[in-house]
């Protein structure tokens, strides 16, 4: 059963590859902002596109060209995406230096309460904060007081949120962050895991939450799967397989998923598929 699912997931990646190349080319032609291009290029590297590919080199050059002197890009969100992308080339000295500057800029723009928003004046948000903590972790940055403040803020915010209705992307962010620098309280993690499993829709996907009229979406489903795959146990296994099946059955003919902007669906879903295939070879 799993082998069959793996084959379908591999086919989904094969279908997403030409679509993503064409999309990236189009973005280059019409001069789409670097954040969107870097996000897609990062995904292409993940599925095995070569670093020396002309399209990738073009995105890298543009990202380096657009990095400001202070180390950031246009916004915190764009800086996070570009940092993630250029970190694929961290063996090069010039890029090591650029990464250092970007990390420094992100620390400088942490909100007083410990979280990060999408841009400098934005309020702190769990989806931004967990992704920043995650990249710091992936870059091997040592745990420090700024990171501890980010965790304290995320945990407090999520516990408040969960008392009302909660949102699957926030729950996923909490669980992903928990696998980075430090463990959040056992109670928070257990409650969040339980909350996510109960929040799965009957069709196998996830939406913002089970009360949302939106229903299952590629982005919410793929993010939840990315989180649950870090807690692969008998309890989560069934939910993960159902979720992955939702992903493959909702891929459109051209290799895309129903999301806007189009790269968001493909990046999220391919990310979840790649992680699944890595943990379930």
């Amino acid at each position, binding site marked *: 059963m799993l082998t069959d699912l793996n084959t379908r997931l591999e086919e989904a*990646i094969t279908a997403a590859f*030409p679509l993503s*190349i064409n999309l990236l*080319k189009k973005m280059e032609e019409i001069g789409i902002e670097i954040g969107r291009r870097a996000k897609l290029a990062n995904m292409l590297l993940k599925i095995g*596109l*070569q670093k020396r590919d002309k399209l990738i080199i073009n995105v890298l050059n543009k990202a380096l060209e657009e990095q400001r002197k202070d180390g950031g890009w246009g916004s915190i969100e764009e800086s996070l995406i570009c940092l993630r992308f250029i970190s694929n080339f961290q063996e090069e000295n010039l890029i090591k230096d650029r990464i250092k500057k970007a990390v420094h800029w992100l620390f400088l723009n942490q909100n007083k309460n410990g979280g990060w928003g999408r841009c400098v004046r934005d309020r702190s948000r769990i989806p931004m904060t967990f992704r920043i903590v995650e990249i710091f972790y992936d870059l091997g940055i040592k745990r420090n007081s700024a990171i501890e403040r980010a965790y304290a803020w995320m945990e407090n915010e999520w516990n408040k949120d969960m008392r009302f209705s909660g949102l699957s992307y926030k729950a996923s962010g909490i669980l992903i962050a928990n696998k980075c620098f430090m463990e959040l309280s056992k109670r928070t993690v257990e409650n969040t895991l339980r909350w996510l499993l109960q929040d799965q829709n009957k069709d196998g996907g996830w939406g913002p939450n089970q009360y949302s009229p939106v229903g299952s979406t590629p982005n919410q489903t793929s993010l939840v799967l990315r989180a649950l795959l870090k807690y692969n146990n008998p309890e989560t296994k069934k939910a993960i397989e159902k979720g992955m099946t939702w992903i493959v059955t909702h891929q459109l003919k051209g290799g895309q998923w129903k999301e806007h902007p189009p790269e968001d669906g493909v990046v999220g879903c391919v990310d979840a598929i790649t992680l699944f295939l890595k943990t379930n070879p």
Partner: protein
Amino acid sequence: MTIQLKDTVNIVKRKEGTLVYSSNAGKLFKTSEVGSFILDLIAEKKYDEKQIIEILKNKFSSVNRDELEKDLKDFLNQLKKCSLI
């Protein structure tokens, strides 16, 4: 003459094989491990046909040279036909 892949060719390496996409032709191809090895050599942009044969001969010493030459020619013809080189 050095063999070169067209700029419109993108290669993705998967565990199950290598995917070659020509955005010009809008076509996706799959190649074997040997095909993927040859594509790697071509992507380095520094080898001609003879040099590739020598490298293949060293890597696949059990296969005779004539057979290797014929297989490489066939493969290169396929790449040309598909406008990949």
